[in-house]
């Protein structure tokens, strides 16, 4: 089962880079038109790192996640996993590679087959690949269920509907880890859960990441959640990356007005905190017809004429901190639009 990655000889593949996404474009057909869900996105995820991918519904973060594991084929651009270009693998090779890259989904209940028993659901990755004997597989299932906090004795013979959302998410996580992946892509794994259960699952993911030496991509719309679990955060808006930075760096000095607005919209449990900033206005524009220049300009409080004329490239403003904005925050130019200089 252990399909050891074969680095492309002679290329500049860094063994510490588990996943590299390069100029990824994903298009969908919408009637007679093509809509770009992901427009030219590039980033890397290093071994042992958790990269957070954050943005509103419709920003392309889920499509990016699905393209990473090739559930969604890329229209152009490449996804390299452990040095292999996934787009060039045969279906058979891709299937083998996927044991090392797993995904968990937002709705934990519907992502489990309601008619199967928990022990069979969790054992499936091993059954498919005929790993070990039946007894060995059963033992692996037991220890994995135990790792995610589900009692294998009482839960094994039950079916998904007998469990709460939080428990189903634990079961999904157990299934994802069975084949021994090195990369785990989590797509909104806690947004359907209560805050109390959310905290349990986030702590569990942190524990499992350490225990199994995982590299993670964590996709969510809540920046506070993403920041908690991630080493680095990539902020997406309308199919593009607008800011990439270390988590604490991003919080201390957000450079993109969109990042600032996302932070302001988080409901902090503190009645004394009366921040004046109102957060985001309006909704995401249609990706069928994205605004010219900077895509965020229609909702940006600091918009300038240059923003509609010219698209800002993603550029480095500090070591490890990239932003796509003509007037990044924290620099003297970024005054509100009303003050004309």
């Amino acid at each position, binding site marked *: 089962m252990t399909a050891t990655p074969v680095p492309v000889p002679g290329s500049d593949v860094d063994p510490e880079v588990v996943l590299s996404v390069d100029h990824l474009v994903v298009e969908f057909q919408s009637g007679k038109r093509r809509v770009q869900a992901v427009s030219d996105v590039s980033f890397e995820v290093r071994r042992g790192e958790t990269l957070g991918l954050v943005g*509103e*519904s*419709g920003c392309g973060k889920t499509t990016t996640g699905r393209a990473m594991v090739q559930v969604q084929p890329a229209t152009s651009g490449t996804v390299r996993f452990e040095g292999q270009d996934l787009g060039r693998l045969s279906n058979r090779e891709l299937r083998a590679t996927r044991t090392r890259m797993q995904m968990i989904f937002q709705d934990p209940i519907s992502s489990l087959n309601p008619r199967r028993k928990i022990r069979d659901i969790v054992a499936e990755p091993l059954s498919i690949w005929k790993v070990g004997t039946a007894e060995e597989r059963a033992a692996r299932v037991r220890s994995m269920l*135990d*790792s*995610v*906090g589900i*009692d294998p004795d009482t839960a094994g013979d039950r079916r998904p509907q007998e469990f*709460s*959302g*939080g428990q189903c998410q*634990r079961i999904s996580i157990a299934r994802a880890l069975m084949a021994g992946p090195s990369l785990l892509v989590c797509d909104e794994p806690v*947004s*359907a859960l*209560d*805050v*109390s*259960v*959310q*905290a*349990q*699952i*986030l*702590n*569990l993911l*942190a*524990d499992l990441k350490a225990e199994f030496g995982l590299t993670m991509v964590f996709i969510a*719309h*809540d*920046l*506070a*959640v993403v*920041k*908690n*679990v*991630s*080493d680095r955060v990539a902020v997406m808006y309308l199919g593009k990356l607008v800011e990439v930075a*270390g*988590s*604490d760096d991003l*919080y201390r000095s957000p450079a993109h007005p969109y990042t600032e*607005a*996302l*932070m*302001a*919209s*988080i*409901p*902090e*449990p*503190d*009645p*004394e*905190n*009366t921040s004046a900033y*109102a*957060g*985001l*206005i309006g*909704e995401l524009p249609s990706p069928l017809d994205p605004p010219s220049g900077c895509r965020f300009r229609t909702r940006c409080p600091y918009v300038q004429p240059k923003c509609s004329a010219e698209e800002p490239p993603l550029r480095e403003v500090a070591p490890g901190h990239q932003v796509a904005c003509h007037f990044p925050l924290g620099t003297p130019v970024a005054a509100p639009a009303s003050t004309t200089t």
Partner: protein
Amino acid sequence: MSPGRRTSSRTIEFPDISEVSSNPLLTVDDLRTAFRTPRGTLRAVDGVSLSVRRGETLGVVGESGSGKTVLSRSIMGLLPARDVVRSGTVHFAGHEMTALPLADLRQIWGAEMSMIFQDPMTALNPVVRVGRQITESLRLHLHLDKKEALATAVELLRSVGIPSPEERVRSYPFQLSGGMRQRVMIAIALACSPRLVLADEPTTGLDVSVQAQILDLLATLQRERHMAVILVTHDLGVVAKRADHVAVMYAGRIVERAPTRTLFAHTRMPYTRALMESIPRLADPSGTRLRAIGGRPPDLLNPPTGCRFAPRCAFAQDKCRQEEPPLQPSEHPDHVFACWFPLADGASATPEPVAVAAPRRSGGGAGVAAGAGADVDTGAEQ
């Protein structure tokens, strides 16, 4: 705008606003709702008392299964006809809701008291244009003619921030985004200017950015119309800046209730504090271990004796497991809590951020019990 006017030949009379302004608009006393199930009687709401004044916002906070949704449905009288036992009183604007026949309740629903449901996709009729779903109550309660009602619907959509409302009244729900559908739900709920709106998780399932917009919108409309709102949510962050009072529910009961600032500054009940601490904070460094509450809420078919939170509480003692604590007043005005060993100001509900994420592996240390209340015997933090 016209929906504010009250022209009707209703049979059920409501006292003039000035007469009732000194009394609470809604007074719920010892409300109990139980469901008969094949496995026994499930007491979803078990002795809840609360009151809401005109124009005020009450936040009702609890986890899934705490009974908060059943509470709001019991207040409205929106319960199944069979296998339900409800007792206690719901006094609303001079009427005893529990004593009213269905015909009278129908005149109150939508007109005087309305509800914003959690899931706008299933709460809206998928095959009826949103305009007609709004005009329905306008025509029924305010007796507007078709044209007036449609004009009012357009105005309502405009007031909830829907762009080009003249076109949107002709849309079907599936043609709108989640945030837009929730705005339509709000427009329907507010169409007849009710005195009380029950908002049951109105923003769960929406992006944080849209959530803030929807809650701000609700607050603005509430101020303009002087409505009372009961905001039901699992997230204390949602009510922190928006509710005047907050009631925290656990296993069918209110375990702490206070003016919002008092609740946050002088939390007494460990469950309230634990709910606050389980929310990830932006200001905390990345990788900060969350103070999760171990275990799950109890089975309401068979709730534990004593304090119902005791099996998950870091401070539970023998008394907690034997005797149920009554709601008692604190030294702060309007603040009640149910706990034998209340927290001091600023104390944490989890003595140490230990790995209580789950009843994790059995070999994880001698003191860590499997199941609920895994962190009972860990030492103090400082």
